[in-house]
C-alpha cells in the first residue's frame, strides 16, 4: 500500500517541477507518506488500547499461560535500533553520491531486518502458548504479527531501493532520493512502533 505513493507521484503530470531538484522541493510525496503513517500509527494505537484494556479489565483465565522471556526481544530491539542508524548512514552516503557505500549500508540494514524477523520466528516457536490459547496470547500475536508484517514490507522496500540505486544514474540516486527517504521514514516509524510495543508488551 505504501509503495503506491512514490509511483503515483512520479507519474503525476501535474507536478510541474517533477524533474527539477533544488532547495525548494515541490513534491508532496513525503507529506502524503507522513499522513499515511499517522493513519498507520492509529491502527497500532487501536491494538495497544485493546491490549491495555484487556489487561486492566479481563483477568487471565485460570490455567492459561502467558509468560514472555526478555532476552530475545531485547536483542530484537537492539537489532532494529542499530538498523535505523545504518539506514541513516545509507541516506547520507547517497546524498554524497557514494552509491557503493550506500548500497553496503542498505544491505546491512536489510540484513538486520531479516535477522529481526528470524529472531521473531524463533521466539514464536519457543513460546509456550499459541494464537488461540488465551486472550493475551491472541493480542500478543496480533500485535507482533502486524508489526512483523510492517518489518517484512520495509525489508522488501529496502531491497528494492538497493536494487534501484546500483548505478549513479539509476532510479534512485543523489538527484532522486525520494524512494530511499520514503523507505527510511517508514523504517524509523516501524522501529519507533517496536519500541512502544516492547515497552507495553514485555516490560509492563
Amino acid at each position, binding site marked *: *500500500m505504501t509503495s*503506491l*505513493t512514490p*509511483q*503515483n*507521484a512520479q*507519474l*503525476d*503530470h*501535474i*507536478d*510541474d*517541477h517533477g524533474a527539477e531538484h533544488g532547495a*525548494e522541493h*515541490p513534491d*508532496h*510525496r513525503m*507529506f*502524503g507518506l507522513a*499522513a*499515511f503513517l*499517522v*493513519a*498507520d*500509527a*492509529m*491502527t*497500532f*494505537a*487501536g*491494538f495497544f*488500547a*485493546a491490549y491495555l*484494556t*484487556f489487561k486492566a*479489565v*479481563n483477568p*487471565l*483465565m485460570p490455567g*492459561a499461560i502467558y509468560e514472555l522471556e526478555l532476552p530475545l526481544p531485547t536483542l530484537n530491539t537492539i537489532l532494529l535500533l542499530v538498523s535505523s542508524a545504518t539506514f541513516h548512514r545509507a541516506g547520507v552516503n547517497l546524498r554524497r553520491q557514494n552509491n557503493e557505500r550506500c548500497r553496503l549500508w542498505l544491505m546491512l540494514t536489510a540484513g538486520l531486518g531479516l535477522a529481526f524477523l528470524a529472531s521473531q520466528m524463533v521466539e514464536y516457536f519457543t513460546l509456550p502458548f499459541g*494464537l*488461540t490459547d*488465551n*486472550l493475551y496470547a*491472541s*493480542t500478543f500475536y*496480533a500485535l507482533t504479527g*502486524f508489526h512483523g508484517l510492517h518489518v517484512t514490507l520495509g525489508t522488501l522496500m529496502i531491497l528494492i531501493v538497493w536494487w534501484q540505486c546500483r548505478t549513479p544514474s539509476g532510479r534512485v540516486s543523489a538527484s532522486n532520493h525520494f524512494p530511499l527517504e520514503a523507505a527510511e521514514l517508514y523504517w524509523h516509524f516501524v522501529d519507533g512502533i517496536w519500541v512502544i510495543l516492547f515497552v507495553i508488551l514485555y516490560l509492563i
Partner: protein
Amino acid sequence: MTITAPQKTAPASPSLQPTGWLRYLSFSVDHKVIGLQYLVCGFAFYLIGGAMAGAIRTELLSPVSDFMARDVYNQILTLHGTVMIFLWIVPVVNGAFGNYLIPFYVGARDMAYPRLNAVAFWLIPPAGLMLISSYFITGAAQSGWTAYPPLSITTPATGQIIWILSVLLLGGSSIFGGINFIATILKLRRPGLKLMQLPMYCWAMLGTSILVVLSTPVLAGTLIMLSFDIVAHTGFFNPGMGGNVVVYQHLFWFYSHPAVYIMVLPAFGLVSEILPVHCRKPLFGYTTMVYSIMAIVVLGLVVWAHHMFTSGTPPWMRLFFTIATAFIAVPTGIKFFNWLATLWGGRISLNSAVLFSCGFIVNFVLGGITGVALAQVPFDVHVHDTYFVVAHFHYIVYGGSVFVIFASIYHWYPKIIGRMLDEHLGRLHFLLTFVGFNLCFAPQHWLGLNGMPRRVAEYDPQFELVNQISSAGALLMAISTLPFLWNVIASAFFGAIAGDNPWRALTPEWLTSSPPPVENWKGDPPLVTHPYGYGTPADEIDLNSASGSDLWRSGQ
C-alpha cells in the same frame, strides 16, 4: 508551495486517458471526472440502499413478521445501514464534492496525488458489489452495521467476513481520500492564497479528513481482530474465551462516532458555499465558523462512549462523555446561528438549492436537539436502541447530509454539466422529500419513547398505525426520487444553457467555463481572496428605508 502552475500551452493530458463519456468508466486521474464517478456511483448505491429501506418499511406495515424471513430482514437492515453510510453519504459528501471542488478552491489544477485519488475511487465499486452480491450468494451479514460481537461471531461467517472485507476496502478508500484532501488543502494552494481566505468547504474537508485519518484506521484494526475471532477462533471479543465485547464497542465507536461528523461536516461546508451565493450576502462570521469546525473535530474524537451508556461503562466515563457530547452543540449552534444571520437581510432567491439548504437547517436543528437530549445519560437509558435513536440519526444523516447533497446537486449541476436544472421539478422534489421525510421519521420519535426497539421485524399491535404513517412517508420519499432523476437526466440534454456563472458567484469554480476544461482554467488560476464578497456595504443603504436590525454593524 511552488505549484504555481504557470501557463502550459498544451494541456499535458496524461497518456492513454480516454476522452468523451468513456473517461467516466476509466482510471481517469482528472479530479472532476473522479468527483463525478463518486457522485454517480454513490447515487446508484443510494437507490439500492433506498430499495432496502423500502423493504424494511414494507415489513413494518404490519406488527407481525410477514413480508420476509426474519434472518433476511436482519440482512437487509445490515446492508441498508452499511450501504447508506459507506457507499452513499461518505463517498458523496467527501469524495464527490471534495474531489470536484477542492482543487478549484485552492487554485490547483488537480489533487495532490491524482493516481492515489483514482485508486481510492476504484476501491469503492468492487467493495460495494461484493457487499451486495454476498446477499445473493451466501447470505449477507446479519448483525447490523455495528456488527457487535458476540452476535457477529455466531451468525453465518461468510456473510460477516465479506462485510468486513468490503468495509476494510471502503475504509482504505476513505483514508487515501483523506490524505489527498489534507495534502491538497495544505500544500497545493496557489501562491498568495492564505488559509483564512479559503472557502468554508475547504475547512470542512480539512477537518473531516483529519477525522478520517485519525479514526478510520482504528476501525480497520478492530475489524481485523473481529475477523480473527471469526476465522481463526481467537477470543478477543468472545466472552467464552475470556474476551471482552465492550472493548469492541469502544474501538468501533471511536471510528463510528467521528463517522457522523465525517458525514455531516462536509455538508456544513457545502451549505456555507450555497447560502451566501443565493442570499447575495457574505457568509456571516467566517472566523467563528472555522473555529467551530475545528472544535467539532476535537470534540468529535472524545465523545464516542455516549453510544454505550447502557453497556456497563463506569460512572465517571458516563459523566465525561455526557458533558463532552452536549458541548458539541455549542460549536454546531454557532454554525447554525451564523447561517441564520447569513439569511437575515439577504436577497434570497427561493430556488431548489436554497430550499434544500433551509430544509437541512430545520431537520438538523431537530436532530441536534434530540442529540443533546440523547447525550444525557438518564434520558439515553430509556430510549437507547429504540426508534427514537433511529429517528434522531436519520434526521442527522438524511435530513442533514442527504438534503445537502441534493442542494449541492441543484447548485453545482450547471457547472458540472453546463445546463440548468428545471426549477419546477426541483421544488416538487423538495416538497415531496421534505414532507415524506418528516412524515417518515418524526413519528418514530414517539415510537421509541413508547417502547418500540430498533431493528425488529415485529412489534406490539399498538404501534401499527404510527408505523403505517411512517411507511407512507417512506413511500413519498421513494416517489420524490422520480422527478429528481427525470430532472437530472432530461436537463443534461434539454436544459437551458447555463453559461459560466449563472448564480453570479465569486468562488473560483465559477470563474471558468461550464463544464470546466481539463486543467480547470485556461490561463492562470484566479486568486480569490474574498470568496464571499457579496453585498452592498451598509453605508450605501438608504437609512430611512432600512429597519434597525439591518444595521448590525460589522467590523468591516
